[in-house]
């Protein structure tokens, strides 16, 4: 699974990245996590509400920081 955490590097983006790490650890999901901070790339993915989450090339969440348990559900739904 390929996960991208999208956001310009602000506080909420770091929180989202933390929550993703916690979610992966607690659910035992194997994934590569990449942080994308470059604005032009963000916009090219269709993101204007940050932070956002992309899984296997598809945008799944934007504009908030879900709890780790909600991220697990999100990822399980796609596995």
């Amino acid at each position, binding site marked *: 699974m390929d996960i991208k955490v999208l956001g*310009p590097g602000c506080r909420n983006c770091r929180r989202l990245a933390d929550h993703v790490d916690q979610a992966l650890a607690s659910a035992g999901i194997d994934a590569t996590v990449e942080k994308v901070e470059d604005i032009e790339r963000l916009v090219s993915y269709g993101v204007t*509400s940050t932070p956002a989450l992309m899984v296997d090339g598809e945008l799944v969440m934007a504009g908030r920081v879900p709890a780790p348990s909600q991220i697990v559900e999100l990822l399980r739904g796609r596995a």
Partner: protein
Amino acid sequence: VHVLTVPRPVVRAWAPVLAAAAIWVVLYRGILPFWDWVVYDALGLEAGTRLGGAVHFFFYDVSKLLLLLGAAVFVVSVLRSFLSVERTRALLGGRRTALGTVLAALLGASTPFCSCSAVPVFIGFVSAGVPLGTTFTFLVASPMVGPVAVAMLYGLFGLPIAALYVATGLVLAVVAGTLIGRMRLERFVEPFVYETTLRQGIDPSRGLTWADRFTIGRDEVVDIVQRIWPYLLVGIGLGAAIHGWVPEDFFARAAGPDNPFAVPLAVLLGIPLYTNAVGVVPLIGALHAKGLALGTLLAFMLSVVALSLPELILLRRVLRLRLIVTFVVVLAVAIVATGLLFNALFGAATLTP
């Protein structure tokens, strides 16, 4: 008989919120007698003295403002979860009218986005065909008229001042955006912004349950309180110290309503000062009591909240320096004019809650 049935998940989501609201009311009514008792009875400080007054002011105001901030941030975050940058953009796209700019100010005050996403929001708006001036109106209104600023003003100065501030902020945002729109500065936007084609994104306001929205509200309250409590303590602490120990009319001669240079100076001071309304509002009350004019203080607060150096540096990625400078000058001049107007109108007025 028709019986109104509410779905179970809705009940389960609302029950803790209503319980919390009830506890909130009890606390809000209880803090004044509580701190009266602690400071004057348990600690035995005299009510009329400097120390007694300052200690009471500090504890009572900190707890009152924390309660007000918590409630304001929660309510606004839950309401905001129904709006999104995507929805707002769709509402504003292609509106080249004054109405579009007014709408942008109102939406800017209510659409959720953190200042660090100013740049993606800017690109999203401009590439979706929202006029440049309207986009600036949105970006100005958003930090200036937030729940934190309004809750602080309400808590310390009461409803009329808070309402006056909101109206002033919205008008300023509309005026600054309209002026920038008239100047035809589109060529100073980095070209890649116009070359961006927007892919369909995700609208964060859709597909949320009440429980999700309340969780967003709760998380936001926790996050904001964690972030601002040092500012609150320092702001109220300094305010209490100024109240107690700076002589009356200390500023009246140097920076009273008659000194025209006080306002521009306050605005200049406010640009590099990057704090939020939480740190500034308590100081405003204290400084006003010592003779600083209302308009000067309003200009200072607007400048601190609306013109922030870090955000300007971020905007450099999409705007040429000339446009950034124009934006700062237009907004600063508008704020100075507002300050001077308020000094002329309410020069002798006093702020009392």
